[in-house]
């Protein structure tokens, strides 16, 4: 009896005191041609990795071993080894890759190439290009449905979300949204697809089954003119209850009730906020502020900005290894 208590007590002690595996956030700095590595325990930049020209889209591989970063002006995606923090390889994307998404298994990478109206498909294991899909003008936002069957690409000048069947690689539907769609995000239960329109100033809610816009989130910030409100990055909590939307030159992140679609709050962050990533425990959300060259740390539960961290010039994308 006593022994048992001791053992369970030991277990508690072990869990409490074992150092949590330090989570690092990787931030692409579009102008510096670097990736900043932020330690999320100390909230400091612990490394700066030199990469190719104009790094933008950035994501961990599913196994957490590598970080992929699209270097648009070098027409490739570089592979950073997360252990050594060195660029170790590059992937054959099309011209000017910007954003990309992986399938759930981490075997296939879909890349939006801004310059030639195509989505490129890359086999991540063999690191070879296996196909292309012709889409609208200036493809950018990329998302994959939770069941892996549908790939979404948004085209910025065509103003559509293209639904691509991942099995046949054919476009099966095109949904018109407001001007300059930048980012797409599915709810984890596949009930909704959200697409942000930077110039239109809205986020469209799309029913993935009907493939139609069922609602729009609009933003109204007293004292700010409508043109300055430019939604880009979207982050949703895993339970599908709360969403955060970066509003660009409005210098704010909107906190949205993801069920009712109502905006609850605006959090003041740095200047020209675009993309974001959660820590794996979802306690914190990190957002990139391009013009103020920093990353704001948001306490998700308290819905408060607790810190800002200086990174390189024009921070663009951000990623963290997810469990």
């Amino acid at each position, binding site marked *: 009896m006593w022994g048992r208590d001791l053992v369970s007590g030991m277990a508690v002690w072990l869990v409490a005191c074992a150092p949590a595996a330090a989570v690092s956030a990787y931030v692409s700095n579009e102008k510096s041609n670097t990736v900043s590595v932020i330690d999320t325990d100390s909230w400091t930049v612990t490394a700066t990795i030199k990469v190719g020209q104009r790094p933008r889209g950035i994501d961990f591989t599913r196994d957490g071993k590598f970080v992929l970063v699209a270097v648009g002006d070098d027409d490739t995606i570089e592979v950073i080894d997360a252990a050594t923090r060195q660029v170790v390889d590059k992937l054959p994307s099309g011209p000017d890759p910007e954003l990309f998404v992986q399938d759930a298994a981490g075997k296939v990478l879909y890349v939006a190439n801004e310059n030639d109206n195509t989505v490129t498909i890359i086999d991540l294991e063999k690191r070879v290009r296996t196909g292309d899909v012709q889409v609208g003008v200036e493809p950018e936002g990329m998302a994959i449905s939770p069941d892996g069957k549908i790939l979404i690409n948004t085209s*910025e*000048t065509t*103003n559509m979300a293209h639904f691509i069947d991942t099995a046949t690689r054919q476009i099966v539907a*095109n949904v018109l949204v407001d001007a300059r769609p930048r980012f797409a995000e599915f709810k984890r239960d596949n009930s909704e697809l959200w697409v942000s329109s930077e110039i*239109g100033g809205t986020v469209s809610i799309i029913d993935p089954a009907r493939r139609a816009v069922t609602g729009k989130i609009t933003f109204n910030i007293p004292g700010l003119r409508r043109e300055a409100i430019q939604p880009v990055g979207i982050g949703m909590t895993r339970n599908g209850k709360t969403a955060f939307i970066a509003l660009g030159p409005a210098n704010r992140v909107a906190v949205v009730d993801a069920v009712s679609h109502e905006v609850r709050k605006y959090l003041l962050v740095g200047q020209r906020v675009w993309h974001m990533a959660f820590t794996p425990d979802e306690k914190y959300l990190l957002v990139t502020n391009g013009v103020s060259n920093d990353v704001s740390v948001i306490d998700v539960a308290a819905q408060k900005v607790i810190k800002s961290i200086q990174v390189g010039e024009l921070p663009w994308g951000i990623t963290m290894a997810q469990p």
Partner: protein
Amino acid sequence: MIRWFVGAMAFCALTTAAFAADPIEVRIGYLGRAGIKPTLSLVQQPADNDGVAGARLAIEDNNTTGRFQNQRFSLDEIRLKPQDDPAMAAVSLADRNISFIVADLPAEALLKAADAVKDRGAVLFNAGAPDDSLREADCRGNVIHTAPTRSMLADGVAQYLVWKQWKRWLLVVGSHPEDKLYADALRRAATRFGAKIVQERTFEDTGGARHTDSGVTLIQRQIPVFTQQAPAYDVLVAADESEVFASYLPYRTWDPRPVAGSAGLVPTSWDAAQDQWGAVQMQNRFLKLNARRMTALDMQAWTAARMIGEAASRTSSGDAKTLLGFLKSPDFSIAAFKGQRLTLRDWNLQLRQPVLLVDGRMVVSVSPQEGFLHQVSELDTLGVDRPETKCKLK
């Protein structure tokens, strides 16, 4: 036999129509000027396809989008020599069932063309004429303007000069009518934003070639003399749309002063150096299609043809009335790589737009400048605003 054949043909046509819905065809006309206006700088000499090259890119962009909506866009181009009748040219486009015409014409010719096709329900997009009069006393209900006005351009550069605290201007004006109109806009801008024109000088066009074998030596002597004995000033502002003298001014003024207006820091709707807000993609697309860099006129024509494509896409229609209704409605806006949505001023159908300030190599700044506020849109701090307008749309 023949009757059977005709019958079979008709049957084939019917079945084809039944199986694949006919695409919506949107034909766009382009009325341009023949001949090239000579410039002082060889680098700035416009290409033969200046303007229409932008419209062609927009047709490509519209067709890429149109593939997903079963819409097709095409361009019918007419170039007018000075002796050609713009009214007849516009009517010939209307006769081809063209309801949207992108025009790069001088003000007078533009009005003739617009009035000739008004009863045909055709709309002109003014991509080339900066005249304020076309948006004021001479405004038309069937003319939409994508070119910025002289007053928008003048206000754009004036806001920056005032922000820099370069408030004392030496204004040098050319001797041609359009130079004087630009000078009017610059004077108005100075008054609006608190600059002071300390003196005005006229640079007479005495004729002569723009390119000569010993030009530089001569100009180096002329310009310092022309600009000497001026009252104390911060910046020389030049109004020379006629390409007679402005490009000679930088680095040659008697006093070491910057130049703005028609040379030096130039206000414009677009520049080959513009790379913000996703513009690099646009610049690359244009370069690939036309094997040269994109000019302001190219951009104004691109925007016009894209507006038509956007209206067709949003309304899923090719019907002229439907498209025009959408363009004139509050729902209309267009993204054109300027960092914000562009909309139409409903009182005169002028496209609101930021003004780039360029030096020939870089974009120096973009107006409206911070702090120039407006109750409706900060873009309305550029040009003639609603309370001052003389336009009554018909």
